[in-house]
């Protein structure tokens, strides 16, 4: 049988209690489950190893900035189960911080799926999200000494980079 969004949500709640689920967004064409950030790693491990679901593939990990007004950053995990052809979407919402010293922190899921390694580095590079427990959290696409996090909505580029004018 094929499990629905509600089945998987209930399985998570029986395993970890109801408090891990912050909210759910089932009105969407692709429903999402919003989790508390502390629980994300254990839930991922559970979903990967539970023999009802076997979410063995992390399709995509996207970060998303809601801008300074809403003041949140979202991290969206697209899970896919090859044996059962199931999709599941998890989401974590955190405060976005000021983008300089104060950066949001989310547990890394590199130990669950190695795919997350480079995706989390990219999210760190572009949004300044610190993934605690990540083995090698460096910038991946931008130079190591670049300032700021370009995909944040309030990003302004630095004026000069090694004497080169940045704005064109």
């Amino acid at each position, binding site marked *: 049988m094929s499990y629905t969004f509600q089945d998987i949500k209930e399985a998570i709640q029986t395993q970890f209690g109801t408090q891990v689920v912050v909210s759910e967004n089932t009105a969407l*064409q692709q429903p999402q489950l919003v989790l508390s950030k502390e629980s994300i790693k254990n839930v991922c491990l559970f979903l990967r190893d539970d023999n009802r679901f076997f979410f063995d*593939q992390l*399709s*995509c990990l996207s970060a998303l900035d809601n801008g300074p007004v809403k003041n949140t950053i979202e991290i969206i995990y*697209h899970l896919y189960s090859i044996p059962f052809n199931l999709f599941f979407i998890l989401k974590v919402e955190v405060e976005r911080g000021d983008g300089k010293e104060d950066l949001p922190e989310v547990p890394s899921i590199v130990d669950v*799926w190695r*795919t997350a390694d480079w995706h989390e580095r990219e999210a760190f590079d572009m949004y300044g999200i610190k993934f605690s427990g990540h083995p090698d959290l460096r910038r*991946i696409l*931008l130079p190591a000494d670049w300032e700021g996090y370009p995909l944040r909505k309030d990003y302004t580029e630095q004026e000069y980079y090694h004497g080169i004018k940045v704005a064109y």
Partner: protein
Amino acid sequence: MFDTGKLKRGEIIINMGPQHPSTHGVLRLEVLTDGEIVKDVIPHMGYLHRCYEKHAEKLPYNQVIPFVDRMDYLAAMNSEHAYAMGVERMLGIDKDIPKRVEYIRVLVAELNRISSHFVAIGTYGLDIGAFTPFLWVMRDREHINRLLEWLSGARMLYNYIWVGGLFYDLPVGYEDRCKDFINYLKPKLIELQKVIIDNKIFIERTANIGVLPLDLAINYGITGPMLRGSGLKFDLRKVDAYSVYPEIDFDIPVGTGEMGTTGDCWDRTSVRVKECFESVRIIEQCLEKLTGEYKRTREFDPQALVPKKIRPKAMDFYVRAENPKGELGFFFRTTGNTDVPFRCKVRAPSFVNLSVLQAISKNVMIADLVAILGSFDIVMGEIDR
């Protein structure tokens, strides 16, 4: 980066790239070597970063398509197809697209798939010292480039598949030229198979090299010919059955470890060569439909369904499709009150596929590192975006 203070006796750090022909673009590999042995390797990228995702947040949906072309510049049609499909699904018009449009899309996407695989196979031959197949595939790829140029005016970056339709119908006589090309290509593919994957020297060079076990591949999120080379029959064209692929009969070649171990470089290359044969089958069936059931009519307008204003409702949407390199995914966040995406993240297959390099190239020879990297078939435009 490696800590130079912790080097053991005899170990040297070597930079391979970014201007190295074997790294397939501007990829820099930082290699920790002990003599001829690679102890560890760290890929560094970003030299071709063109801020796709930032650009996409500033542009209307239809204007993003040329940027999508420039990600995987060897298979632009496939990327366009995935992107257009995603936006159409968000708009809810994906079921209304005329069959002729869908068949043309699949036809050009498969032509492009062959051309992308040709580059992969040809340059892989170059990497490990076979020059002939490179010239052969470039000669045959030229025919595909010309066919697609006739269609769209561009040789590599087409902007041909639009949201809701196509830029233009097939030119008159296109189907016949395609048929001629397919008839020309079939014996050439057999030649290519003989000169590459059945070649004794090639087998000796690639069998048992760079073995990627299936569990590791899945954990790293590997998709496309690499995953199938590791022995899993997984193709999104079959699994998701998007576009008109369910109406078309084709097989999914997988690696079986025929020449060595399942998931070695030979398996990956052989999957690509066999996929070219399958693409030829798909193209033949498309041409049959395009000249029969869905043939050209005077009334047919490929732009009939192209929306004047592309404004999807507020939602999060993930769409994926099978590119020559693997699963290409687009993640959209739309707000419902603008024509530009709020967020357009790309899950690039090459990006994910490359991440496994470090895991499977420990304690191999330097020459084998080139062989392993070549068998991944990466495109830097897609990794750096």
